[in-house]
């Protein structure tokens, strides 16, 4: 994350004519032989062009930047450019104070979820050629903005930890009786998708209910709980304990099946489906006592 102090002149940089005219290295690039699919066409269109991005800016520590605004950048397009690439270019070439989280650049670390053209997306997994210009890049909604595209993730992490996101065993066996805990291929298949979560927070940010009800666990945490509750290697008692956390008023019942989370999840986790399954599990558990 860039933490540099802003230079005062950086504010006028975006409209600098010099920058607009920057010659793109992409112009040199050769087009691949027979590749004339849709993606290639879109990229060909942009070749040698600049991409217009509008980036949300806010910095509480610099006077004159405390009022949120949008900065325009014209970034030379290169083949395969992602949203993350474009803001990195803007930061490296035009305004070193532009701040955002990123790390692995391959959709594994989950640090660069942004609100791009009105949808929560992972910056490093979104091709800029797929988006309409100007590309509007904002921090995740419903979370406090710390600076530019950086939001406060504390509440999200609190919710994740509330579901006890770690494997639990009822009783640890004697040291000499220790054994590998095997999972059946079928059970592995069942929790496979839920285990793909990268804690990016896109789903939580897209959830209309999580925005209104601060206590709602949210899709990511419930999915995390699903991963363990559905794991056969955890005992019945632990599963019941997990369901008790989930079936509280601000647990699974708050989900209104809007499918927003499922739609934005960059790892294609069927979040709504998992939440629904847990609702049914919780009802079944309670019906037994009637």
């Amino acid at each position, binding site marked *: 994350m860039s933490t540099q102090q802003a230079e005062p002149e950086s504010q006028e940089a975006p409209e600098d004519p010099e920058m607009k005219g920057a010659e793109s290295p992409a112009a040199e690039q050769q087009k691949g032989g027979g590749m004339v699919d849709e993606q290639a066409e879109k990229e060909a269109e942009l070749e040698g062009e600049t991409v217009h991005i509008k980036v949300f800016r806010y910095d509480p520590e610099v006077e004159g930047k405390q009022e949120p605004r949008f900065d325009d950048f014209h970034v030379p397009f290169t083949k395969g450019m992602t949203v993350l690439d474009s803001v990195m270019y803007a930061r490296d070439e035009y305004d070193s104070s532009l701040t955002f989280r990123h790390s692995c650049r391959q959709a594994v670390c989950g640090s660069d979820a942004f609100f791009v053209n009105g949808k929560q997306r992972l910056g490093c997994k979104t091709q800029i050629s797929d988006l309409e210009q100007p590309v509007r890049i904002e921090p995740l909604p419903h979370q406090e903005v710390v600076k530019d595209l950086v939001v406060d993730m504390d*509440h999200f992490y*609190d*919710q994740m*930890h*509330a579901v006890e996101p770690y494997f639990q065993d009822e009783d640890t066996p004697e040291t000499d009786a220790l054994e590998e805990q095997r999972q059946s291929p079928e059970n592995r298949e069942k929790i496979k998708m839920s285990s793909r979560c990268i804690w990016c927070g896109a789903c939580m940010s897209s959830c209309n*209910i999580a925005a*209104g*009800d*601060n*206590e709602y666990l949210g899709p990511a945490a419930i999915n995390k709980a699903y991963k363990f509750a559905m794991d056969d290697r955890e005992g019945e008692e632990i599963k019941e304990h997990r369901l*008790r*956390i989930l*079936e*509280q*008023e*601000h*647990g699974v*019942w*708050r989900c*209104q099946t809007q499918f927003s989370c499922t739609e934005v999840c960059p790892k294609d986790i069927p979040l709504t489906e998992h939440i629904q399954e847990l*609702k049914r599990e*919780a*009802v079944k558990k*309670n019906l037994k006592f009637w």
Partner: protein
Amino acid sequence: MAEQYSSFTPGGTRWFLQRVTAAFLVVVLAFHFFLLHFVNHAYEVTFLGTQARMENVGYLLTMVLFLITATFHGVNGVYNALVNQGLEGTQKKAVLAVLVVASVGLVAQGTYVALTMSGMI
């Protein structure tokens, strides 16, 4: 936030009842609309006609059950909508009390009306 989840308040029963009443209401509401707008027309309703329908005990019971389930389903829906908006604390309790009183009042009045229609009162 973990400590916020220490109190054990299952919301599952209400969720489940909302679904059960929904399944019932889908059928009865469709029947109700069909009967009073297509078989009989709303503009032709007279007390005599209403009385004739309500004198059938099965119909009367269905209508009273219809009223009870619809009131629960509707009022519970309203309550859920407010909880989704983040209603909490004293306000939440007050809203719940108002909604419960309104529901009981509606069901009582509705049942009384149904009984006058059937000629039982």
